[in-house]
């Protein structure tokens, strides 16, 4: 008989740690499977210099575990990771995590009504599967011809080798997304020469981060309500100022545009370079990236901004389509993550023998309430399809989903339910609604190719409405939308007699 649990959580990042804490509160037996050697998920994997969160720290944290000690209003990766590690330790999550355990397949067994997981440490069965494998967990490594012949170092931002020193080297950074904007200033400081390979320019906003003085921290420690107020301020201003512009009326992004243009003019005096750095899409279409150091680093004489396409990679450098060979010692791929084609979905096989990936190939990545998928009973996706946001903290979305999942687990126990399987018609209607709301949004109409969109131009990543509406939807589990299979009368009697 293989190992069996009530609940298995895949991943020990923000989602997995939060899930474990809530499960433990309800006294539900569970185990967390984590492929890495420590908790933290994306905040453990991403260790590139300058890595930080572009959501205010007071908001980018669990509501039930405030941290008065944030040293910066926008924290750097090490501090976020230390926060997560501390929360995990304080709630004894660590002892429930199985580290170095990679899930290779998850299959629904409709005879025993259980998920069967094939992992690097053997077969594990469970009644309920919570997939907290993450949104930004799988590096996207584009294929460049000849990359294997390159004699120098190649690193993806999420697979950074901290022992590698760029001092005095010639460095290429490919990409201009969120991670590139953070890496470039850091690398520029030490490198002999920096090449930034830009396909599309990014809208750079002024960064408003500031160090939080000791006195302020002490104040938050003394008066927790004060920190809650700051958190609420960040939350509501994002909801009512940023979201309406992005989701409802892209014309209103003019303000963001003006701010970014002014920032650009101040930091890049050369009009020719400035033209190259001016994006041709509506701000917000790609994730907005704040930085005060990026543009000066790009404008520096020791940096070359390359806007020609990459033809191939040669042993000594990168050859662009104009025929130039840019000789470099190290190539940094700041090319982001596989979001709309995350390979995790290929591992999960549902009731009718098809994988999530096969289903999503047909219909596009979709779920009900971003959490459940028809034909995949007792599976809950954390940060699933259409739960991403461009304006606020994803932790808020995770907590809303956890409320929903915990309510489902409560109902299972109270009412003797063995499986919940969402109605396909409900899931379809939900997604029609979400896609309809996305139609006018900047993510769909902004004129850019972003990781928010899949290869068919459908948007399976963004929640297009106020996040409190999402939380309200998921405040309690809606039995109406689910098929239930009940624990049989005999088994209930057995449990009762025990």
């Amino acid at each position: 008989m293989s190992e069996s649990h009530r609940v298995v959580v895949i991943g020990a990042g923000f989602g997995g740690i939060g899930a474990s804490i809530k499960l433990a509160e309800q006294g539900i037996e569970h185990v967390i499977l984590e492929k890495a050697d420590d908790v933290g998920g994306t905040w453990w994997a991403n260790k590139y210099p300058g890595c930080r969160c572009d959501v205010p720290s007071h908001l980018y944290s669990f509501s039930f575990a405030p941290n008065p000690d944030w040293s910066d209003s926008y924290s750097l990766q090490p501090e976020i990771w230390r926060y997560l590690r501390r929360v995990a330790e304080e709630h004894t999550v660590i002892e429930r995590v199985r580290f170095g355990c990679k899930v290779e397949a998850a299959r629904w067994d409709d005879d025993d009504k259980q998920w069967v997981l094939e992992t690097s440490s053997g077969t594990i069965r469970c009644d309920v599967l919570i997939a907290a494998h993450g949104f930004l967990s799988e590096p996207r490594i584009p294929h460049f011809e000849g990359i294997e012949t390159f004699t120098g170092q190649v690193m993806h931002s999420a697979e950074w080798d901290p022992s590698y020193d760029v001092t005095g080297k010639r460095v290429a950074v490919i990409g201009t997304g969120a991670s590139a904007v953070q890496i470039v200033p850091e690398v520029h400081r030490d490198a002999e020469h920096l090449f930034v390979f830009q396909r599309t320019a990014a809208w750079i906003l002024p960064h408003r981060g500031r160090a939080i003085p000791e006195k302020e921290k002490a104040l938050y420690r003394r008066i927790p309500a004060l920190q809650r107020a700051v958190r609420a301020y960040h939350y509501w201003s994002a909801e009512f100022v940023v979201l309406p512009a992005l989701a409802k009326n892209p014309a209103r992004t003019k303000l963001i545009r003006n701010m970014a243009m002014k920032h650009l003019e101040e930091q890049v005096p050369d009009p020719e370079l400035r033209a190259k750095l001016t994006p041709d899409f509506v701000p917000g279409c790609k994730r907005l990236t704040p930085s005060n150091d990026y543009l000066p680093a790009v404008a520096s004489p020791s940096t070359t901004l390359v806007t020609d396409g990459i033809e191939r990679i040669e042993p000594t450098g990168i050859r662009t389509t104009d025929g130039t060979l840019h000789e470099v010692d190290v190539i940094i791929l700041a090319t982001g993550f596989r979001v709309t084609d995350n390979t995790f979905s290929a591992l999960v096989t549902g009731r009718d023998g098809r994988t999530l990936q096969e289903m999503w190939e047909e219909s596009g990545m979709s779920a009900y309430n971003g959490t459940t998928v028809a034909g995949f009973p007792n599976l809950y996706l954390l940060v699933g399809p259409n739960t991403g946001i461009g304006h606020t903290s994803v932790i808020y979305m995770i907590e809303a989903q956890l409320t929903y999942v915990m309510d489902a687990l409560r109902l299972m126990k109270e009412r003797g339910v063995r499986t919940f399987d969402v109605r396909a018609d409900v899931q379809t209607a939900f997604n029609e609604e979400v896609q309809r709301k996305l139609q006018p949004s900047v993510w769909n109409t902004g004129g850019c190719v972003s990781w928010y969109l899949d290869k068919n131009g459908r948007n399976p990543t963004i929640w297009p409405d106020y996040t409190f509406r999402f939380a309200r939807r998921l405040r309690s589990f809606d039995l109406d939308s689910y098929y239930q299979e009940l624990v049989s009368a005999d088994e209930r009697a057995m449990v009762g007699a025990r």
Partner: protein
Amino acid sequence: MGFLARPTWGFVMSWPDPHHLRWTPTLRVPSDDGTEIAVEILGDNHPGPTLVFIHGWTFSSRSWHYQRMLAERHRLVLMDHRDHGESGTGPREHRTIEQVGRDLYAVLEATCKDRDVVLVGHSMGGMTIMALAAEHADLFGAESPDAQSARVKAVALLDTSAKRPDDHTFGLRGPFAGLFLKQWTSSLALMVADPEKAERARRSGSAISVRISGFLNLHRTSDRRLAQFTEAMSAATKAQVVGDFWADLDAHDKLKALEALADVPVLVVVGVADRLTPVTDARIIAAGVPGSRLLELERAGHCAMLERPEAVNAALLDLVANVDHQPAKPRRRSRAAR
């Protein structure tokens, strides 16, 4: 078939008309005692499984108003119970669940020979399916002894019960429950004892009668036009028939027959505000039939197929799709036996 692809109905659903309950049967099937059962066949040209609809106590096949549109994709057979709707009148002593189960068998023999069948029963119609299962368990499941019979491949039980609970109070509490029960029992007794007098006392079509029908059959938020419709169907059923069948319904116990259903996919649907066959009844069925799927619908009382047609129809299509995908489910029995 695309799992997520669902048809969207190309027309707006219309309200059922309480003034047009009469209809012309496609054929009349004589049951084993000679009573003629009125049958309507829709979408006769569709291959694939036939959906057979069996209505509830005091209603008629017209109660499947919103399910008729499924004929766009499937062959449908709708029947009126004996002494209901367009069916003939049978002997009084034959007003039993067992007999309507035999009527259903006769209809299946006449309309669905050598075909795959999905049985859809509401209330007493669900009990009719259980009665059929008790007598003809061999029809349920993949292998039928002679290939000539109908093969029941799936069953949908809407707002029904396998056994009436002893403490049934129509969802009422307190002194009100006692009062209502007393009135209810005496009215039904009168229908059996003195049908003429009961008929006169019924005041069919009156506002109070509509109110009572809505109270018993529907969720409080359901449209009054539905209450007018359910009232009209009940009013068209003779008082004595109502009383006779109630006596048998009240004694109905088919928990055993549920075993035969374990061989086929079973869908159980119930409205959360069902007063006649409350959610607990549905949960007993769902817990008693291994592998069955239960749907508890909000904003619905005893008539989910009228109050939540979009959900019921989608669930029926899911059930039929299941039949298309999985020809046999023999393992279910082994589970039940385990």
